[in-house]
């Protein structure tokens, strides 16, 4: 007997949700936005014309603007989690990239600085790939380690460039803070980026191999997949994406510091998990992670509106993430 015959309607409903994980996610996002509207009438749907209309588009634009770097880092987590890995160095890599770009722009010129920033991400990614794919260190340990090493290097580097001052390249500022028709310019980067990641996962041999490695590494090996090649390329790509995110974030925040993008790390993991990506590999969706990032941003707005002390806000944020994830896992039967 195949398993399909022994299921209760509830399990079958769960399977529909699992096969279409976007349905409950988007429903949840809309629910949260509705709650937000109740908490602060007019923030989402202004009923009076005029000034409130501006507020609404401002809020939506802001929501999207701050969700973009989160969703980009979540892409790193989704891709690595597909192979049952994780990349905990992305926060640091984004910071390094932003810092390197800001400090070198005034010395070397902008194009060189940007190239150097991306190269930093690539190098950390390659080291991660070497450790995970060839030495077979657990990705959690490996990327945590390289993240710490990169933090240390950044501190040493800071001492040498402290006098040079920093400069934010104008086009990054345009990308990070500018708006076109009420929507953040970051979308000019993000939309092609998202399309690329979705295409990569679904319509390329590389994407297939990611799913295969996470589902059953022996089966992949048996079919001729050399896992070290895939992992090497995967972590290098993850490093590059993190560096790119750092550049965008630099333009957004406009004040490079030694821990600029670090606070984005755990939310990026949360966005991926909320979006239905399994940390055990073989199952994941970047579209889900994007919605996950939006959900996290809406939650953040709600907690800010509650005017709680910072500590309570952070604790509540963690609690909500756990609850949402647990609920989602229960409904869809994924893990």
């Amino acid at each position: 007997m195949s398993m399909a015959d022994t299921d209760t309607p509830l399990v079958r409903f769960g399977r529909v949700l699992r096969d279409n994980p976007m349905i409950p996610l988007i429903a949840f996002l809309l629910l949260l936005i509705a709650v937000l509207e109740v908490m602060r009438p007019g923030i989402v749907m202004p009923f009076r014309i005029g000034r409130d209309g501006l507020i609404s588009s401002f809020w939506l634009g802001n929501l999207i603007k701050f969700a973009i770097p989160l969703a980009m880092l979540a892409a790193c987590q989704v891709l690595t989690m597909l192979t049952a890995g994780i990349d905990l160095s992305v926060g640091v890599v984004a910071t390094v990239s932003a810092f390197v770009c800001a400090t070198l722009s005034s010395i070397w010129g902008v194009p060189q600085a940007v190239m150097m920033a991306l190269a930093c991400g690539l190098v950390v990614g390659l080291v991660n790939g070497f450790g995970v794919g060839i030495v077979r260190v657990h990705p959690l340990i490996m990327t945590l380690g390289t993240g710490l090493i990169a933090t240390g290097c950044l501190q040493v580097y800071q001492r040498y460039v402290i006098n040079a001052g920093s400069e934010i390249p104008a086009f990054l500022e345009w990308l990070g803070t500018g708006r076109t028709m009420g929507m953040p310019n970051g979308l000019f980067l993000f939309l092609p980026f998202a399309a690329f990641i979705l295409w990569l996962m679904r319509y390329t041999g590389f994407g297939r191999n990611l799913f295969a490695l996470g589902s059953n590494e022996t089966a992949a090996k048996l079919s001729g997949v050399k896992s070290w090649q895939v992992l090497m390329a995967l972590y290098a790509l993850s490093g590059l994406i993190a560096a790119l995110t750092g550049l965008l974030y630099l333009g957004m925040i406009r004040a490079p510091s030694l821990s600029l993008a670090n606070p984005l790390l755990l939310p990026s993991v949360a966005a991926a998990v909320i979006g239905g990506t399994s940390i055990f590999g073989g199952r994941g969706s970047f579209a889900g992670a994007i919605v996950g990032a939006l959900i996290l941003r809406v939650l953040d707005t709600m907690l800010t509106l509650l005017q709680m002390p910072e500590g309570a806000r952070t604790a509540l944020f963690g609690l909500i993430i756990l609850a949402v994830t647990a609920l989602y896992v229960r409904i869809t039967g994924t893990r």
Partner: protein
Amino acid sequence: MTDTPLLDASGVAKSFGAVKALTDARLTVARGEVVALMGANGAGKSTFVKILTGALRPDRGRVLIRGQEARVGSPRGARRSGLVPVYQEPSLIPDLDVMDNLRLGDTPVDPFRHWVEALGIKGLRLTDLIGDLPLATLRILDLARALAAEPDVLLLDEMTAALPTDLVERVLETVRAKADAGLGVIYVSHRFTEISRLCDRATVLRDGRTVGELPIEPGVEDRAVELMLGETIDLGQRDAATLQAVRRGTPRLAVRGLAAAPKLQDVSFDLHAGEVLGVVALEGQGQDELFDVLAGFRKPTGGTVSVDGQAASFAHPADAIAAGLSYVPGNRAEALLAQRSVRENIALPFSARMRDWGPLRLRHERARVAHAIEKLQIDTRAQGEVQRLSGGNQQKVTIGRWLATGVETLLLFDPTRGIDVRTKRQIYPLVRELAEQGAAVLFYTSELAEVPLACDRAVVIFGGRVVDVIEAGAADEATLMRAAYGLTAQEGAA
């Protein structure tokens, strides 16, 4: 009371939604009787077993144990009422030692020890960690544990699948002796040889109902297969002239003195394009290592392999694949992406090489996959996730993967293990057809009766060495069995 059967199940029906798994299943077991329960996959066998052991409740019908209505409802309840199952998969906890596992099941230790000895496992310590013990031993421990519980009825579900032949013998002897002393046994198996040696009767299920109860007597195999399928197939042998033509010229695969310490000692053979070469061996004679080396999973410690006359060595399965060697491992779980679709599973090798990492050639892929599915008659009703397919269909997917890429040399390791007769009978002609179309097939099987069905000849490996080469025409089970035990080699030496 002696007339009351130990177990009497009748009119058992069970549906899952719209799917009727069982409509009218019945089974009786008298004292001292061994009853085979047979049926192709999808006949409802596993549902029936689950109902008998109390894992599922029937919609209709009753299960009487010693004349008492067994309101089983739970495995523990069935156990208390005197029915103890032993399954194909070991049910011991790998992280605990033997003693702790016994304690968990309230198994008395001394009887357990007695049965372990009787079943031919020497030197087992109760402090041994389950995870360190070989698979075959674990199956025996499961059986010993069941026997130690002094059941009225013992249910053996495919428990001999992949047991080495000598242990199978011990199991059959022990179970038979225990039955002669009054135990009732339900024996679920695909293997006719074991059934005809052990069982008194066979109960055959088809499409959810019991379609026949046959006494075991000569010729029962044909009757049982007829009942299960409603048809019989006879595969003849290829004629000698064709085979001679096939074996001329450079062999596709030439293995010389191949060794992989410690088990594989010295194996040589030629495999030509267009032929199916059987490999016959008892468990653990080096056949696993032989296939691992040929598939690129393991480095040999000696000897050479050449493909089409070119020396070859494989550092990774990718190298073996590049040389045209496709491997279907014995354990389906190793080869499949359980949560992924049939299409992705079959298309997996298409994107393995780095140069194929780019955009998928979807049209090409769909065509190749559709071809493989059609060729193998894979039931694709549950194609969204391979884990929802039946065992036989899963095995077809692992073979279909290589059909889609184009087979040159196919390494099949026990491809029919634990799958139903219907699927088996689709696999033999398929293997032959592939060979006739020019593929070279190396076919290891733990079921000796398969050799004349699928192979042109067979090499027999014993103690890591080739001890005999037998043409399929002469490969009856007795001959193969003697050879597999190394008997011909000893005679030669004497």
